């Protein structure tokens, strides 16, 4: 009887302590010296990677680690700093939430599996990749490449011209206030792009829709294609552009009061072509079954 009473009292206490133990993360902090224009590599499987640029010649790492995480390796050698979350072998769990500060002119390479990635205040080139995690980054003037399998990509610029490359398999892509050269590809994700001044744009999707809005520089080139996705392009430019939109079975419309014409008498297919303004730039849009809308007004 007494042992039963003891058990009934001790069991809830044991469970409560287990819950407290399970939720208590380990904290990791480390700061190492780094070159102002060095390279910083960061990798993490699960959790989060948050990177900020700062003025100090140091890399600072603050991490909250679940118990399944074995350790965080931080190594600095020459111009190279590496931060790597290490999991026990045969473990796929274990979240690590990394908060990293790096010299703002550093080149940044981030690789994640299901961790979300955010980067801000980094002036150097950025190469950000994740499998299912979301990638969010601020474009500060350095070239950027963002790549995911199923995660979304969100990039926000300040109008500085950069070379920007994004690709996803099924994730959506959102770009705001980008500028310069832009290249994007997706299978089924949506591409929603707003560029302040674009020199060259190339976008391709299999079934995802593209929505572009923005200005092109004089003589810019814009090429977009999709198999079944719709292309909605509102691109304006001072020098105007020659345009050609072709679709096998999709509808083509514009805001120029120009009608598309059939490409063949007996086969499906239509084409819209002409020149706006001086025709300094080139716009080419192609789909198989997706609809195309083209306008030179925002």
């Amino acid at each position, binding site marked *: 009887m007494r042992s039963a009473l003891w058990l009934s009292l001790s069991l809830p206490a044991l469970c409560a302590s287990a819950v407290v133990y399970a939720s208590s993360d380990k904290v990791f902090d480390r700061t190492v010296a780094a070159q102002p224009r060095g390279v910083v590599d960061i*990798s993490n499987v699960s959790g989060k990677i948050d990177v900020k640029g700062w003025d100090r010649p140091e890399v600072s790492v603050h991490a909250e680690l679940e118990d399944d995480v074995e350790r965080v390796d931080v190594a600095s050698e020459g111009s190279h700093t590496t931060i790597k979350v290490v999991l026990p072998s045969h473990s796929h769990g274990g979240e690590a939430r990394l908060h990293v500060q790096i010299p703002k002119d550093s080149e940044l*390479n*981030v*690789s*994640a*599996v*299901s961790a979300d990635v955010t980067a801000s205040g980094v002036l150097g080139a950025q190469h950000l*990749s*994740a*499998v*299912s995690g979301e990638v969010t980054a601020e474009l500060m003037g350095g070239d950027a490449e963002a*790549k*995911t*399998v*199923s*995660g979304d990509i969100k990039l926000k610029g300040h109008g500085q011209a950069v070379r920007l490359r994004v*690709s996803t*398999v*099924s994730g959506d892509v959102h770009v705001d206030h980008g500028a310069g050269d832009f290249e994007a*590809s997706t*299978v*089924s994700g949506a591409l929603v792009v707003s560029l302040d001044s674009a020199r060259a744009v190339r976008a*391709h999707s*299999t*079934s995802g829709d593209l929505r572009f809005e923005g200005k092109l520089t004089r003589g810019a080139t814009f090429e977009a*294609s999709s*198999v*079944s996705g719709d292309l909605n392009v509102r691109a304006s430019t001072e020098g105007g552009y020659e345009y050609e939109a*072709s*679709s*096998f*079975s999709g509808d083509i419309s514009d805001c120029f009061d120009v009608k598309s014409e059939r490409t*063949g008498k007996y*086969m*499906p*297919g239509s084409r819209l072509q002409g020149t706006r303004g001086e025709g300094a730039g080139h716009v080419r849009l*192609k*789909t*198989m*079954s997706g609809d195309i809308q083209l306008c030179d007004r925002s």
Partner: protein
Amino acid sequence: MTGREGPDGRTLVKSLGELPQSIEPPRDLWPTIEARLGGIEAPAPAATAAQSIGRRRSARLRWLAAAAMIASVAVGVWIGRSLLPLPGAVPGARSPASAANDTSAVTGAPTALDAAYVADPRYERQRAELLRSLQTRLAALPPASRAKVMASLETIQRAKEDLERALGRDPGNALLQELLVNTYQDEMRVLTDVREASDPGEGI
């Protein structure tokens, strides 16, 4: 009748209008006709030989017609298999017709069809290798990501089939050829991304 008489004693007429509307036979001809019709059941040997030749000619014509039909069907199948893209066909496999009609070696410029079906053994090898390990690679991805990748690969497969079907209707369509090539490139990119994403310690 107002005509003159000819040398044989017959009356000559100047116009058809001078002829009588009808002439009654001097006797009933039907019994003779009926008797001759009845005799047809047992044809003369000369008539049998003529009919036999006619039947042989007719049979030969039928054989020729059948052979022509088979030949035209065969040519149709050959054109269909060798010139038009088939659903599920691998683009790297260059069509025999394309190879046979290859003028690019002479002109140095690839034809539109060749542009869409460039034979590249490296591409074939890489794709086959990536497909072999796909299941293992997918298993290493997070479940939500795995489902999305599989859905995307299905999307690519559908896009390829749609494009190949459309190209079957309009084989010379450069727009469709370009989109098909892009779609094959997309497939390779996804397969490569999946491989890299599932490699421990490697980023995509």
